[in-house]
């Protein structure tokens, strides 16, 4: 029986520059890169040396703590550079792509007869595994653990995020394959949340429990949905996977090919013609950025959406999990008496001479200015208005800051990921780095108890 989720608390951040629903093929990138920061908590051990030739889907490195977990190359070509940082930590891997792509073909397990262990083994070796993430800790799933359920959010509410239904159109076959495979790895259910209209590529798939969600952001965040459907308790594990990544997973299961192709949204007020592009994981962002054009010289380029994405540059590469690239103006300018003037062009949840409440549907052109300085926590009751989970956000943040492990556990840190605190961070009057605080808290908890 499906359960509908209605979210009341939250905030839609309407921004200028949503991607128009037309898709172009991006120019083929010369160099592709895997940014190791995308794989949080993974210590890489290289399988390939600099200068070696790789096929698309051939393992580049593995997880030092789980040797069977391979990370594969999105394209075929030459591994031209292993970029290292302080203490020789590997930062990224760059691959000079071949003109004609050469795929490594894995031996596909029979989806009807294979058991969970066989599928797990296949995904680990073929490079599909890193797409599966787990809670607690919001990291790549631990293959030793059995999840009590798997959650998929097929409804994007983040500002300027790619429309899930649009980018998944026609991918039902791959999605079904991925679901069938995932279903074998859990005794529990696969919960898929779709928009309230009910039109979704997932709507007719088998082996899932469908939920309709409605309400403002963060209704589309998988963390919110988990909290409303079946919250994570201490000791339990749930997996999450994004629908876009399921397409790659599905193709990997059907054909044995790791096809890193995906449709991404290029959006933001700086982009002249925001729209969708098909490209590959790790592609140079410049291959599609300038096709749409930019209207300013200086801007912030973000791998992901404006709330949770990571900063990149025009020389950057598409992230492993991202299906959105956003460009917004930098805001490194002073504003005269900016703290007491009435504000019409910024979003606020208060009405302290801020007037965004007058036009809830107006689209804003926000820049990266913090609109104030970092302060101690002062105001209370504000986060609760945009935080729909049954968790005390302020108290949990404070528990993480003072590293009180008991309190972190008791207040529900197992249930959250940094992205769940992106909205409270957005509205925070004290300009505290909520997502960083939660990330550090999760890392500490995993180190001490995980």
């Amino acid at each position: 029986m499906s359960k509908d989720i209605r979210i009341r608390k939250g905030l839609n951040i309407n921004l200028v520059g949503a991607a128009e629903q037309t898709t172009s093929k991006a120019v083929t990138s010369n160099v592709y890169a895997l940014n190791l920061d995308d794989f949080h908590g993974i210590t890489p051990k290289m399988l390939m040396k600099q200068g070696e030739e790789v096929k698309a889907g051939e393992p580049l490195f593995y997880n030092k703590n789980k040797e069977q977990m391979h990370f594969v190359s999105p394209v075929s070509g030459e591994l031209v550079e292993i970029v290292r940082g302080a203490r020789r930590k590997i930062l990224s891997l760059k691959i000079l792509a071949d003109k004609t792509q050469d795929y490594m073909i894995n031996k596909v397990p029979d989806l009807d007869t294979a058991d969970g262990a066989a599928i797990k083994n296949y995904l680990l070796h073929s490079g599909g595994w890193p797409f599966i993430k787990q809670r607690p800790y919001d990291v790549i799933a631990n293959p030793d653990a059995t999840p009590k359920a798997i959650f998929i959010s097929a409804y994007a509410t983040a500002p300027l995020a790619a429309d899930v239904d649009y980018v998944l159109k026609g991918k039902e076959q791959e999605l079904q394959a991925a679901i069938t495979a995932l279903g074998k790895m859990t005794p529990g259910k696969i919960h898929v949340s779709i928009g309230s209209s009910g039109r979704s590529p997932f709507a007719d798939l088998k082996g899932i429990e469908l939920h309709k969600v409605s309400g403002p952001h963060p209704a589309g965040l998988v963390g919110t949905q988990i909290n409303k459907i079946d919250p994570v308790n201490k000791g339990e594990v749930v997996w999450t996977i994004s629908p876009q990544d399921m397409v790659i997973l599905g193709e990997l299961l059907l054909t044995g090919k790791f096809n890193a192709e995906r449709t991404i949204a290029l959006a933001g007020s700086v982009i002249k013609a925001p729209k969708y592009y098909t490209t590959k994981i790790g592609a140079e962002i410049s291959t599609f950025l300038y096709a749409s054009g930019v209207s300013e010289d200086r801007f912030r380029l973000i791998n992901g959406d404006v709330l949770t994405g990571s900063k990149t540059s025009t020389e950057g590469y598409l992230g492993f999990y991202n299906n959105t690239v956003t460009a917004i103006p930098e805001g490194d300018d002073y504003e005269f008496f900016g703290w007491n003037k009435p504000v019409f062009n910024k979003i606020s949840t208060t009405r302290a001479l801020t007037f965004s409440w007058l036009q809830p549907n107006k689209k804003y052109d926000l820049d990266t200015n913090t609109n104030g300085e970092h302060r101690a926590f002062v105001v209370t009751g504000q986060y609760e208005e945009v935080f729909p989970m049954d968790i005390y956000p302020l108290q949990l943040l404070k528990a993480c800051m003072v590293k009180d492990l008991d309190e972190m556990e008791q207040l529900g840190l197992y249930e959250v990921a940094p992205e769940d605190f992106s909205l409270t961070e957005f509205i925070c009057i004290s300009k505290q780095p909520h997502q960083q605080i939660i990330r550090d808290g999760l890392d500490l908890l995993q180190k001490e108890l995980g």
Partner: protein
Amino acid sequence: MKEKLHQLKQKYEGKKMAPAFNALHTFLYTPNETTHSGAHVRGADDLKRTMNTVILALVPCLIFGMFNAGYQQYSAINGFPENFSLFDDFLTWSNFLVGLTTILPLVIVSYGIGLGIEFLFAVIKGHEVEEGYLVTGMLVPLIIPVDTPLWMLAIAVAFGVIIGKEVFGGTGMNILNPALTIRAFLFFAYPTWMSGDKVWVHGAKAGLTQAGSTDAISGETVLGALAQGSSHLSFSVSDMFYGFIPGSVGETSKILILLGALFLIFSKIASWRIIVSGVLGSLAMGLIFNGIVDAGWLPTYSKFYTLMSFPYWQHLLVGGLAFGIVFMATDPVTGSQTNRGKWIYGFLIGFMSVMIRVFNPGYPEGVFLAILLMNVFAPTIDHYVVRGNIKKRLRRLKTATIYPQASDEVDSLKTETA
């Protein structure tokens, strides 16, 4: 100007005086800081805007207080006007001048000493000057009697800011409301000056006499009169509501406090939960007292009789109760931080205020003591509210479905599910 200040900022960067300079700089311009981690865009509000909103709500009370200072002084000398007219008797230049010369120094001393200490601490400790004192500095002159000597105020402010706030770590870390700490310090350090019926009207302490007589003027507050047992009040309910009565500078005009409250609730800066439950709490206690009197349990000669028989809803119109509930109880740092806790916290403040007001033998006002008391208990209230959430989570844990890990030893599995 913008460019010059930017260059100055870079010059000061990393130096000892940087926090002091930045405080002044950010007062003029919101900084050019951009997001580094987490969300790339941020909401429009910062702490300065929040504090500024509270100050905006307080300004009408301050201006009214200035007029009222003159009005009370002239009325004490010449008697209250027979046919009161707002423009001829109240909003006059001479009234305002009295207020300006007595109250503006209070404001200047409050801000001067308080901000001076804040800057000093910021420079010593090397953190930015936080905005907490902007509101405190405005509240202080409004909750003290008009004839508070400036040197007393200066000492009290220094005490309140250092002991009430900075020793705990500054803005956001304090346990007690700094403005009320200052008020309490004045009351307990200089009780003979701060209580009685002379301090409320400017000049009464200095021995001003009534016109055409040698009798000294008196400035008895409504509560003072009630505590003395005089059931005959010289002020009507509408006087109390509009605020043409003696009292601390900013607390008299209930209509302006009400407008301030509506503004703060509408702008979502103050917690409506605390305000509403505070009003409910004070009404409840007032009703209980009225009930005791009505039931005839209290003999008429009791010294509590007049205060207890005072109509319950009029408690909100006299003294600092309304002002305290709207502007002091709603301080987010020292109050309850959970929404459910706010209901309990506010209710108890209203309840206790009226109780202390009636039973306090020396000084018939209780709101600042009640709020300080509840400041101390606020973390306890929150603790139990948060416990409720934790218990819910623990109950859920009993039905948890935990699957064995592939690499788990049987023994470790047992401890996991135990």
